[in-house]
């Protein structure tokens, strides 16, 4: 019996390109941010438990390690937000042309990095002010 060509899964014969890179980053940033929900709720529940619990939580949330992780969360946030808006545009039928999608992809990526750096500097300054202001 003749051996037929079996259909292959797309990932086995498409070359790696920017579209699937942005797509997998959207998933990764989403999964990473899901972990951040625990941090957000920890912060809120500490505030609801009184000043002593809140100050302990703030000490933990403003540690150098968390501040570095915060950069990652902000990057994931802005990336996911801006790329998500791109996705919603596609769902409405806009921006799917090759040249346009490439342009919005680059614009989104650069904007995400700029917004992340600006926001991180801003929040980092707030934390430093809170620490040196004797709050902690």
């Amino acid at each position: 019996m003749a051996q037929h060509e079996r259909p292959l899964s797309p990932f086995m014969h498409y070359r790696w390109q920017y579209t699937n890179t942005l797509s997998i980053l959207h998933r990764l940033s989403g999964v990473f941010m899901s972990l951040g929900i625990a941090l957000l709720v920890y912060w809120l529940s500490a505030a609801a438990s009184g000043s002593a619990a809140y100050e302990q939580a703030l000490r933990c949330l403003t540690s150098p390690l968390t501040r570095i992780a915060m950069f990652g969360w902000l990057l994931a946030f802005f990336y996911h937000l801006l790329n998500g808006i791109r996705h919603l545009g596609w769902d409405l039928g806009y921006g799917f042309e090759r040249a346009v999608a490439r342009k919005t992809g680059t614009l989104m990526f650069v904007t995400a990095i700029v917004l992340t750096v600006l926001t991180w500097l801003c929040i980092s300054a707030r934390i430093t002010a809170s620490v040196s202001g004797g709050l902690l």
Partner: protein
Amino acid sequence: MSLQSPLGKVLGNGAAKEGAGHWWAQRVSAVGLVLLAPWFVMSLIALGDLSYVNIVSWIASPVNTVLLSLLVLTVSYHAQLGLQVVVEDYVAHKGIRMLTMLVINFTLLVLGVLGVFSVLRIALTGNH
């Protein structure tokens, strides 16, 4: 000629038996978050210092109480929908897939309820 039954035609559901419900819910919650998430980040920046008094009085103001509760609920829901797609795509074993989804769903539900409870507790007990 279609082999689909008249009932199947009317319901419009494919092999997953749920139609576009999951897809649509993910888009609706995404639109909500496009509004809520930037509001939250900008508020944090506008807050000044992160002291207890400052944070608690910010949470307790009615508009912030409502928006923050909506944010916690919407973000948990959106994460549940998104993580489900990732798990369904990459976890091949049916039992492990079901167990993973159970853990994710329960964890996000607990976090969502705890988050909203915390916000409401601050807003309603008024010990600030």
